[in-house]
């Protein structure tokens, strides 16, 4: 990122409205009760996402599911009572159960798509000002920005310490020496990162930092941003009404 590119980023989507829109759509989607509406919503979201030509990692994200979702899909058909569909030994799967599992899968996928399509490619540094624009307390915004920065710091410190261990012929194995050495590694990583964090903050204070990143005034939202928010509202309302009908 260069000075020039910072200055040129102004004609970009307004993140504040994006965050609000994403939240509304997610809240509506997550409360759907009927499978057809949820499926239609997923299709709509999928089309909208594809229209923006996302990278392959968006679709890969869909495949990442938390373990307990798999667990739910496996158990729900058999635990919800209802019209029997098929039986597996002593267990009988119900139509309602399969429907419920499908509903959850559809909703979760749609939500992941919305989240990644609207906010997936955002640099964390830009999220800070957006959160501030939404009147999130200053302390949380600072925490957010610093956390994003410390991620890299921890990774670098970890890499260097691991190199130091390798240089002295450390070979991980299942023995006490290895465990203790890993304990030292993690402990020292934390200690060093803590101190580094402290000193970086001190260096910032020494250069006139007063708890707020010198931030550029947020560009005011463009007509396109507002249109996006309205679209999100309409979409959320529409699926909710269709669901209740």
């Amino acid at each position, binding site marked *: 990122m260069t*000075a020039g590119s910072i200055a040129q980023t102004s004609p970009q989507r307004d993140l504040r409205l994006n965050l609000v829109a994403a939240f509304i759509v997610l809240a509506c989607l997550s409360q759907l009760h009927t499978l057809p509406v949820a499926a239609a919503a997923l299709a709509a979201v999928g089309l909208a996402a594809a229209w923006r030509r996302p990278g392959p990692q968006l679709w890969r994200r869909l495949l990442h599911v938390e373990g307990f979702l798999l667990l739910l899909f496996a158990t729900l058909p058999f635990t919800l009572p209802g019209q029997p569909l098929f039986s597996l030994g002593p267990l009988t799967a119900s139509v309602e159960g399969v429907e419920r599992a499908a509903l959850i899968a559809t909703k979760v996928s749609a939500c992941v798509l919305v989240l990644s399509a609207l906010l997936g490619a955002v640099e964390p540094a830009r999220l800070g000002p957006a959160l501030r624009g939404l009147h999130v307390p200053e302390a949380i915004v600072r925490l957010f920005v610093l956390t994003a920065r410390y991620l890299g710091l921890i990774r670098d410190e970890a890499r260097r310490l691991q190199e130091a261990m390798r240089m002295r012929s450390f070979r991980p194995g299942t023995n006490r020496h290895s465990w203790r050495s890993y304990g030292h590694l993690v402990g020292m990583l934390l200690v060093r990162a803590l101190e580094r964090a402290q000193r*970086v903050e001190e260096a910032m*204070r*020494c250069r*006139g*930092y007063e708890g707020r990143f*010198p931030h*550029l005034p947020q560009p005011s939202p463009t007509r396109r941003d507002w249109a996006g928010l309205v679209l999100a509202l309409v979409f959320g309302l529409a699926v909710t009404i269709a669901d209740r009908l």
Partner: protein
Amino acid sequence: MSALVALEGVTVAREGVDVLREVNFALAAGERLAIVGPNGAGKTTLLRALVGLERPSAGQVRLFGTACRSEREFRPLRPRIGYLFQDSDDQLFCPSVIEDVAFGPLNLGCTQAEAFRRAEEVLATLGIGALAERISHRLSGGEKRLVCLAGLLAMQPDVLLLDEPTNGVDTENGKRLRAALRAFPGAMLLVSHDDGFIAELATRALAIEGGRLFPAALHAHPHSHTHSHPHIHPVTAS
């Protein structure tokens, strides 16, 4: 004439041990004061106490005539002091070099354009204009040192506190660094183990030992020794 920065009977404890004991000293305008002493003597601690990063258990710190005790009192005066940390990695935190150098001016209320202009100017003066777009934490050790200094100079401070500025800096960059420091109009506090560097720049010296400051004299006595320098020859057979 009042001192720019001063310690008055300051005692600083770290981990329960008194690292500085009732230290008095004052830096006057235009002075270039060197502080020398062995490893662990408390040189870094002294600089940290001056900018309010260590709080004295006794005595007081006076910056530009104002006694400072709390963070609130230190804060408005810090921009007038440029403190170079002993470890450059602690000081660089923006992604690119130019952003890092512009960070100080931005905090002082400069506009984006003005801050970047100042940053570019300082980088050019130090002869490292070419580094502007580089990722700051992927520079070599000596390059980092110069970028840190640029970040301080961009704030146009009245006083520089430099903790081992020549650490890991090569001869060429060292020359530029010295030139930049010589051209700096304000007062300066130098901590260094590099006698040649101190001899060249300092106008007065203090030695720190056992938690106390002693006046030290800068003796200039010509003496001759056999010196060997690695010289670069044109390549014959690599």
